[in-house]
């Protein structure tokens, strides 16, 4: 995903001299490396100084530039949170905040590097747009769209090696939910790399239970495509939210609010990270499993709650 971002960024920045990349001693490879080589004056490494990174971006934006701040998600938004809130959001400036390795992606680096409540925090900030693409191709699309957003954007990315999930998806419409697989018996709502797990569970339900399951990528968490989600809640007998995020303030609670407001007739369940800092390590998948997010566990749970009577 970070390479997909880097390459999309390169294409944008090549033709638009308003675009800058400001980093705090962590950078991307691929297109960003080319950008750094070709336009060193627009690649700014402020050092291990995240408040400076965001403040500088806001200053550039006050002069009409379109700066991207780029580092590990926790350092993009937590360390300099007041600069994010006051400099970028309060002044409604076109700063793009790129957070790499969100969720528990940096598994063995521990809680200091886990952005597991970022969607809640960033969604609560007025003027902020929160985007979380599900695969490299969607990352490129969302990156391109982000520069058309006049205010601040938080771009929540995975890391590396994410598979392509959207080659057979419906066309991408910015800000709208996107079916990456159609179905009739249940619908999975997800965002970010964990969308792959939703697809795996959906495939098994089809294979073993003969249930046809849709999977939707909700790449825009703020603004949320409420109309699209209401339709899902009205049309499907079962809706399952799967997110690599704390149980508070993410997509699950928002979907449940919408469901309540329209008295949705569907069964509805959400799966998220636990409200815990987990002190066991391993791979990204190991960390997700420790939080209860694993395809087999979710499959069994969905069978029980959605299809038990069948």
């Amino acid at each position, binding site marked *: 995903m970070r390479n997909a971002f880097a390459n999309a960024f390169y294409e944008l920045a090549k033709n638009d001299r308003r675009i800058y990349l400001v980093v705090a001693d962590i950078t991307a490879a691929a297109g960003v490396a080319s950008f750094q080589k070709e336009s060193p004056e627009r690649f700014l490494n402020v050092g291990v100084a995240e408040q400076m990174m965001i403040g*500088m971006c806001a200053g550039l934006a006050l002069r009409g530039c379109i700066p991207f701040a780029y580092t590990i998600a926790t350092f993009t938004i937590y360390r300099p949170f007041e600069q994010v809130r006051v400099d970028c959001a309060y002044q409604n400036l076109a700063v793009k905040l790129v957070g790499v390795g969100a969720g528990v992606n940096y598994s063995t680096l521990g809680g200091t590097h886990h952005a597991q409540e970022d969607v809640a925090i960033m969604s609560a900030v007025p003027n902020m747009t929160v985007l979380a693409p599900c695969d490299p191709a969607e990352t490129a699309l969302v990156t391109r769209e982000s520069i058309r957003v006049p205010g601040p954007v938080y771009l929540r990315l995975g890391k590396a090696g994410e598979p392509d999930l959207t080659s057979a998806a419906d066309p991408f419409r910015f800000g709208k939910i996107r079916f990456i697989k159609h179905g009739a018996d249940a619908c999975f709502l997800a965002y970010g790399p964990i969308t792959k797990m939703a697809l795996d569970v959906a495939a098994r339900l089809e294979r073993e239970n003969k249930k046809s399951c849709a999977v939707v990528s909700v790449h825009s968490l703020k603004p949320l495509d409420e109309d699209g989600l209401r339709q899902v809640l009205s049309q499907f007998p079962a809706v399952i939210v799967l997110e690599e995020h704390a149980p508070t303030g993410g997509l699950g609670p928002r979907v449940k609010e919408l469901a309540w407001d329209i008295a949705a007739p569907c069964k509805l369940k959400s799966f998220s990270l636990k409200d815990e800092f987990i002190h066991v390590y391993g791979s990204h998948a190991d960390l997700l499993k420790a939080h209860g997010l694993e395809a087999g566990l979710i499959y069994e749970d969905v069978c029980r709650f959605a299809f038990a009577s069948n």
Partner: protein
Amino acid sequence: MANPHFDAATSRERCRRFRKRILDISQTVGALHIAPAFSCLELVDTVYFGLMNRSGNPESDDTFILSKGHGSLAQFVTLEELGILPSEQLENYCKPGWPLATHPDYGTPGIEASTGSLGHGLGLAVGMAYADKMNGKDRDIYLVLSDGELMEGSVWEALMVAPSFGITRIVALVDLNDFQSLGQTSKILPNFYPMLEKIRAFGWEAVEVDGHDSQAIYNAVTRRNKTRPMVLLGKTTKGKGVTYMENVPVWHYRSPNPEEYRQAVKQIEES
């Protein structure tokens, strides 16, 4: 380009009027930052009337950011004097339904950045100055910071980065009144000092002058070497001009009662 006709006596007279105007406003609201505004009035006045290029062209005019946003009344009365901020807004300062509040907000006429939380202005200025440099703009960015603000780590990040990035067009004036909200800085944090040497060590030109002496401020800034960004430490008195407010922490945010108001006005008028 600095104003070659800047005159310290006229500046003194303006600041006397500004102090009176701020005292008048104090009688219409419950609480406001009078002492922080009185502390930095000469710094703000000298920037606007002596140092800034203000021809009315937003592409080339110098920029001013009041990084110590709580001194906003000093900037508001200046902007009113310049005809940039409508008097009607100042008359309705902090009133329901009106936009002018205790801290400067981006979007208010003459306000180029939202401040109020300390430690933000210099980072913004570095970004603005870098963009100006890239876009070939010939303009300076002036800021007024409080000394308490220099306790914020973000200020030191910006102090480190600006000269490292070859930025020269920032002039940061520090209102060095040796008071923070809860008391005297030299007693609370003795190792805050010496300041001049710290700033020089970060690669800035730095000078210290009497922050209530407009001529001294003007001279120091106009004679800067321009190969590096500059910090001017203006030694000031918090609450300057009203004896009972001077260096008394409660006046950071208190509003005078009618008797105190009369006393203060009398002192200002006789000064």
